[in-house]
Structure formats: C-alpha cells, structure tokens
C-alpha cells in the first residue's frame, strides 16, 4: 500500500498507509490528522483540506483542475504547489508522497 507522509506546520510528522482509490484528505481523516478539516467532506466546496505538496512530488501529483483552482481562492497562503487534498487520489505512483499542512484552514 502506498505510504503518505503529512508534515504539520509545527513539524509533527505522520507517515501512514494510504489505500489506492481513497483521497489524500480521506487518508488524513482516517489517521486523525487534525490539520485537515475537510468541512465539506470532499465536495471541493470548502477549501479546508489544503496541503502544500512537496516540491519534488508536485510535478508527479500534477496541477489542480479549473474547479479546484477556483476553490483555492478561498484558501490562505496558497503556493504554486498547493492542492486541495480531497482532489488528490492515492495511487501506487504516489507511494512516498510528502505533503505539508497549514497552521490554519479557515476555521
């Protein structure tokens, strides 16, 4: 199973087993990573599941869709590598993925 590492803003690091087909947001919730809020449950309508994808992984994960890019307008401190984690599906190609979570998701 692909491993995913979440690094929180204070440096706390969690490496967890992801399930192919689930999203990076769902994987975070299942593993109790509280800096992912996901108020809308993956609907791409709340922007409270923001992550900054590690620079090395960013080209592999790819850019946001137009709909996601619109929603990123409601997030804070958005970077070129920022994504909404509910819009990233875990695949075997993402084994080892590293994402950083922000200090504040808007609530």
């Amino acid at each position, binding site marked *: 199973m692909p491993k995913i590492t979440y690094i929180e803003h204070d440096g706390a690091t969690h490496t967890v087993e992801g399930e192919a087909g689930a999203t990076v947001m769902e994987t975070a919730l299942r593993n109790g990573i509280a800096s992912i809020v996901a*108020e*809308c*449950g993956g*609907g791409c*309508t*709340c*922007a*409270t599941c923001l992550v900054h994808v590690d620079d090395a992984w960013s080209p592999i994960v790819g850019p946001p869709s137009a709909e996601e*890019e*619109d929603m*990123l*307008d*409601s*997030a*804070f*401190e*958005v970077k070129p590598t920022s994504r909404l984690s509910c819009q990233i599906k875990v695949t075997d190609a993402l084994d080892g993925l590293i994402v950083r979570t922000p*200090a*504040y998701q*808007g*609530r």
Partner: protein
Amino acid sequence: MLQKTDQLLGTETMSEEINTDVLIIGAGPVGLFAVFELGLLDIKAHLVDILDKVGGQCAELYPEKPIFDIPAIPRINGKELCDALIEQIKPFKPSFHLGEMVTTIENIGDPLFRVTTDAGKVFLSKAVVIAAGGGSFQPKRPPIQGIEPYEEKSVFYAVRKMDAFRGKNLLIVGGGDSALDWTLNLQPLARRLTLVHRRDEFRAAPDSVNKMRALVSSGAMDLKIGQVTALKGENGQLTAATIKGSDGALSTVACDAMLPFFGLTMKLGPVANWSIKLENDLIPVSTATFETNVPGIFAVGDINTYPGKLKLILSGFHEAALMAQKAHHYVHPEKRLVFQYTTSSTSLQKKLGVA
C-alpha cells in the same frame, strides 16, 4: 454569497414585531421538514437563515453530491433534496427570512419569546426551534497576524452601509462574486479602490470581471495580483497593507478599510449566547420531546445531542416529528392532540390541499 439586496439598501428596515406560532432558526433540511410536521398540527412557522438560500449544508456544501441514505429514496443529491422539501412544505406557506442571522432570544412570557436578527427584525413566538446545524455559516477570517483589533473597525467581512466607505481608500480581497460585486458597487464611492487577488483569473460572473477590467484600464481603480501578508495601523484603524506578489516581491498599499472575501465556514455563532445549556458546543435535549433545558425552546438536527445521537438527515426528520407534538402543547394549549395518518385522515389531507 450573503444576501446583498438587504445590505445595499442599508438594513435599518423595520422593527415592527412579527407574530408567529413558532420561529425556526436555520433553514437546513431539518428546519425545512420541521415546517411540515408543525404544519400538520396547525402550527405556523417563520424561518430565519444566514444563507441567502435554503438547504443548509446540503445546499451550501454538497448540492451536487448524491445522498444514499434517505429512507425510500435510493439516490438524491443535496440540491434535489432541498427542492423536494420545499415542494413538500408548500401547503403550509412558511415565511422565509434569508440572509439574516438570529442574534438574541429573550424569554418574555410563559413561554413567549422575543427573537431578533442582525437585520433588526423582531419576532414574537410561542416556541422556538433551533435547527442551526453545524452552526452559522460565517465569513472566513484571513490568517493575517494581528488582524483582530481591526475587525469591525476597519476590516469588514460584510457591507452593511455602503456610505460608510465613501471617500475612503479601500482594499477588497478575493476573486469571487462577493469581491467583484462589492468592487463594482463601492468603486464610485471610494476615494481609491484596490482589488487584490492571488491570480489574474476570477471565478466571478464574467460580466462583473469585464466591468472591473474596464475600470482598471481606464485608471479608475487598481488591481494587484498577490496575497495580503501584513497590516499596518493603530487602534484598529488601518493605514496600509503589505501585499506579496506571485513573484514573492512585497509592496505596500495605503488603505483606510479592507474587505476580505474568502467564502464561508461554519461556526457556532450566537447560539452560544442564548443561555441554553450547551455540551461541547451542542445542545442537549430530551429524546421524548427534543426540548432544551428551557421550556418552549427546542433543538433538532445536527445542533442537538443525546445518547446515541447520529448527525444524519433521517435522525433530524424523526426529531422534528416528536418536537412538533410538544410544541403543539405551547401553541394550542386548549386543543387536544389526536394522532392521525396522512393516508387516511381527511383533516390532514385538507391541510395538505389534497382532500
């Protein structure tokens, strides 16, 4: 997203009292279905919601997502569920007050409640049903260090009176309809208006975007691409904001007021101030009546808690049915309640307009 017509007109509209049997706070799926259950018992309802539309979480957070656990409906999306509920409660002609937040509840009788909204409306109600769900949808606050002292003094998340911004240097932040609408509405009044957005693309209505771009090219306003990172000022009065461009370069914009529009998030909001007993930001209720610790005030749907509570729409529907039985006792104390089925009772069918 928040209702604008009210705000454009200014909100000192009225303070005449509106009499109702029941006031429902929150027009989410559970508040809507409460209208039906109350209606069957001849109880009239007014509903207030902060959103400019009905449907609560279903309408705001997942209108397009299918729900699979509404009894007897194998699949229905959030928006369709709200539309169906509106259709179902039509016979009871509920009155909606959208784009308003209930701020206070006062117990002035036995029981009788005086309920006010932030738009200055006053209701007199024999019972109150709190169907406030996950809390009120409120504007997101940007994570700018030290923003708090400026809030409501020179940083505003909504426009109450446009005139307050006349002759000011204004900074509007965001790229959606709220940001663009207020840019277009306030630009003629402001001394100078600057719109700040993180990218040179806007999700707002194309017509508003074109109008904004025309103002920028004619030199009537400024557009800056970047994110606000710091505020300058004293005693809550903003004087300037620092903006970090997409290239990382910092610049400063002089401003007297800032309006950030980053969408909505759910917060408990004024419910916390109503002197109703709370447990972890939820309202404990009796599972026989869904009444709170205050007689005459009920809580149904996601906002309540009791042993075994599940935050499901179907649970909220059940709660609304039981709540109505007890509410009847306050609204029609003289009348005896007879249990009836909608399939066979001509009196219920008359109310539904089918007999």
